[in-house]
C-alpha cells in the first residue's frame, strides 16, 4: 500500500473509529509506517492543544 493511502486510511480511522472493528484497527496499526504517522498525528494534536 502506498504511503498516501496509509495516511488517508489512518486519518479516516481517527475521524470515524466507529466505522472500524477492533481487529481492523489493530491490523492497520500493525504497520510500522502507519504507527509512525499516528505518533506524529498525536504529537501534532498535542502541539496545538497543550500550547493553549
Amino acid at each position: 500500500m502506498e504511503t498516501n493511502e496509509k495516511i488517508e486510511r489512518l486519518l479516516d480511522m481517527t475521524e470515524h473509529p466507529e466505522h472500524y472493528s477492533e481487529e481492523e484497527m489493530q491490523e492497520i496499526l500493525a504497520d510500522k509506517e502507519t504507527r509512525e504517522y499516528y505518533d506524529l498525528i498525536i504529537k501534532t494534536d498535542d502541539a496545538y492543544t497543550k500550547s493553549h
Partner: protein
Amino acid sequence: MLIIKDEEESKDIVSDIFTSIWDGTINPYVDKPQNYLLMCVRNRCLDLLNHKRIKERVYRLLTLESSLPSIAINNDTPDMQRLREMVDTLLTPRDRQVLIMKYERKMKYREISDELNISQVAVYKHLSQALKTLKANFK
C-alpha cells in the same frame, strides 16, 4: 436524567438538532413533536457517548502500545514548539491552513471542506501532504 455532563456539548447537540430540522434531515411535524424532539436529543447524546467510547478505546490502544513516551507528557515541550515552527515554515499555505483547522480549531473534515469549499478528499490530500512533510523533517 443527565446523559451528557458537559454543558457545551449539550448545547452543541441541541444546536445540531435545530440544524437538522433546518436542512430537512429531521422532520418535527409529527403527532407529538415535543416527544419526537426529545427522542432526537436523547439519540444524539447516546451517539456522542458511543463515539467517545470508541475514540477513547482507540486512543488507549495506541498510547498503550506506543513506543514514544512523549505522548503522555502534558506540558508544551521543545518538540511541540519545533513542530509548530515546522508547520509555519515548511508547509504550503493551504496544507498549513488545513492542518491548523484540524488540530488547532479541532474541526471535522466535513467542516473544513465546507469552509474552504473543497472536497473532503482534498482535505485528506492536504493533511497527508502536511504530515509527510513534517515526518520527513521531524527527526
